[in-house]
């Protein structure tokens, strides 16, 4: 006669995993870095401007580069954080912002050791962040 096994009360133990690292290698832009290409103006000298509103509610272009002709695209690619600020603006090779030669761009500032913005920014004509290349780990 075959010996029966001893019964014990059924027990199920749940082990839950809590992720403490996130991988950005699959193009997940939630956590990770972009490859930001500084190309607005294609190397031409000009200024970077962002739209602002004055006290009277009137829109105007505020210069964010050092001068109207101090900025030019370095054409380098930079590793930037997905959490950095990317400001909508324009590159303009002249001081007339309404003559059609303005280039819409996203402006990014490199951060210094203490989180301060350094230099006068880099600007990319890639206006859709989802289309930017993501650094793969």
């Amino acid at each position: 006669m075959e010996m029966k096994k001893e019964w014990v009360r059924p027990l199920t133990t749940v082990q839950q995993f809590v992720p403490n690292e996130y991988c950005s290698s699959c193009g997940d832009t939630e956590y990770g870095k972009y490859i930001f290409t500084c190309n607005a103006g294609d190397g031409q000298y000009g200024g970077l401007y962002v739209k602002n509103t004055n006290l009277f509610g009137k829109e105007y272009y505020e210069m964010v580069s050092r001068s109207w002709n101090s900025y030019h695209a370095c054409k380098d690619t930079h590793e930037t954080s997905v959490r950095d600020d990317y400001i909508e603006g324009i590159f303009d090779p002249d001081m007339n912002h309404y003559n059609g030669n303005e280039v819409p761009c996203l402006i990014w500032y490199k951060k210094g050791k203490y989180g301060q913005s350094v230099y006068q920014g880099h600007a990319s004509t890639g206006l859709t962040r989802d289309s930017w290349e993501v650094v793969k780990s």
Partner: protein
Amino acid sequence: MDKMINLSKKKFKTNPNFLLREIGDECVLVPIGDAGIFNNSLLSLNETSQFLWKQFQIPTSLEEVINLTKKEYSIDEKHLEKDIYDFVNAYLQVGLLEEE
């Protein structure tokens, strides 16, 4: 007891979003697909849980499983039926077992 009677005629089967796998000397349920509350989890089963899970891999009633278990294990009937009922009830509540 009434609840047990209500369940005994129904058939249940295991949720196909969980696979039974043996890892070393441990038996676990691995969630695949939509695992509800068990996403990012592993469920470790002791021997009797594993046995019951295997019985429910094809649609089976509580009564059938109790009979099968009696053939395999030595225990008084009263405790066996209660344990299996508790198992089925708990697994139904968390979606590991589904009513056929």
